[in-house]
């Protein structure tokens, strides 16, 4: 009987409280900066080119083989009169988001901190009518970092290496 009375009181107290529901499509909760959506490439704002050198490290490490990387000689390299120290640079890059399983391995193996997991809602809301539209090319992968839409977050691994040196 005490239990019945207690359960009635509990439900009454929840009745008087505010609902915890968030009206999701109209209201986006702020995501934590370590939120892990799909991988994208980062833009080096100082030199105005991608960080990625097309070294294939991520492509080889990818367990589901969702990446395709092509490299080229950097036209902006110092030997050509440019201001970049990158001898090679990314030419073409595709990531099949439909195949990616968001394991973060590409981010961990990258030697240049050039790839990161998207930590914005754009990384989650990717519904399309044709699954071919989920194969992102270089431009699509870079645009968010280029316009500064994603919150800067240096992976913990790279950060700690820098401070140790």
């Amino acid at each position, binding site marked *: *009987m*005490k*239990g*019945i009375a207690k*359960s*009635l009181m*509990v*439900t*009454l107290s*929840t*009745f008087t*409280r*505010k*609902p*915890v*529901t968030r*009206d999701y499509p109209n209201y986006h909760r702020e995501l934590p900066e370590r939120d892990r959506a799909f991988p994208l490439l980062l833009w080096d704002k100082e030199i105005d080119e991608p960080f990625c050198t097309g070294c294939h490290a991520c492509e080889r490490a990818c367990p589901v083989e969702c990446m395709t990387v092509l490299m080229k000689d950097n036209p902006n390299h110092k030997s050509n009169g440019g201001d970049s120290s990158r001898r090679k640079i990314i030419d073409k890059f595709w990531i099949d988001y439909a195949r990616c399983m968001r394991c973060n391995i590409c981010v961990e193996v990258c030697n240049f901190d050039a790839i990161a997991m998207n930590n914005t809602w754009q990384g989650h809301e990717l519904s399309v009518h044709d699954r071919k539209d989920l194969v992102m090319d270089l431009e699509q992968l870079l645009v968010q970092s280029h316009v500064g839409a994603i919150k800067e977050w240096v992976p913990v691994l790279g950060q700690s290496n820098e401070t140790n040196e």
Partner: protein
Amino acid sequence: MNNSLFGFEINVWFDGLARLGLIVGVMTVVAMGLIYGERKILARFQQRIGPQKTGPFGLLQSVADAIKLVGKEDLRPTAADPWTFELAPYFVFIPIFLGFVSLPFLLDVNIRLLELGLLYFIAVSSVNIVGWVMAGWGSDNRYAMIGGMRAAAQAISYELPLVLSLVVVAMLAGSLNLKDIVEGQAVVPYVVWLPLAFVIFFISTLAEMNRPPFDIPIGESEVVGGPFVEYSGIRWSMFMLGEYASLWILSTLTAAVFLGGYSWPFGEDLGKGYQLLLMGAKSGLYIFVVFWVRASIPRLRIDQLMAYSWKVLLPLSLAQVLVVGFVRVYELPDVVLTAAGILGLVALVSITGRAVASTRRLPGAARTMRSEAA
């Protein structure tokens, strides 16, 4: 032969038809409102929002549901008994309709004021069990069969305490006419004199409506919906409509019989608007408590349910009848009734508490089987 309806003199047959249409229309709208209200209130009990996308504040949710249900295919299993299966919803639905006839909504606002209104209500309200058993039998489905049988067992068991607690009211009022019963409460509502009968009545109505914690016949986790398993579309929606209509009927009856109806407090002279407010508040309170109990208490087992009716509620309501009889015959003061009612309530609470606290005793055969397995 002419009857008067809203002050107009019209033919008896048209009068009957108009009143029938009135029941159907009003009941459907109210049932839809109740479904919306239940979803909203239940959502708040669980800290959700409830329907909000269809129309302003989700008000059109019930309309959307109704359109969806009407649009669905009306399936009948090949092995089902066609007549029993297809007629069952009507047998659930029509008795509930009939229950409306004698209810005193406001002063002189009812379908037809019957001299034996309470008796009529009791007689009609138990007929819909036939429909439940028909639905269970006709579906040719084990779950539906078990559900239908459970519904019959439960309704027959809880009919007795329900009726006995209404008999007590009739004894006190000295009339079976619901109008007289309401007028008898102009000063003090009967819930003050008969607290035990009120509580027993409330518990029995929960069982009668198959509301949680007594929703054993339609328990989704045990019999996957009971008699409704094979129903879809419009027939299923008729069961649903019947359920909410009976919720409304019983809330009105509770308000009229125990809570003073439209006449307590401040009498019947304050006009229809005031009466409407009173009845709305009283039956709304009843409905809210029903939803509250649904949100709080888990479903009982079938043996607990039967035991609770036959071992606890029935003896207590018989004792209540006895006490009221003594009080009426020897013309004792009414305060005796209140005292006896409170004593009975204490007994009810303590018995229920002991029953809740006691561990489950298995029958002998099951106990030996379990010990052998261990």
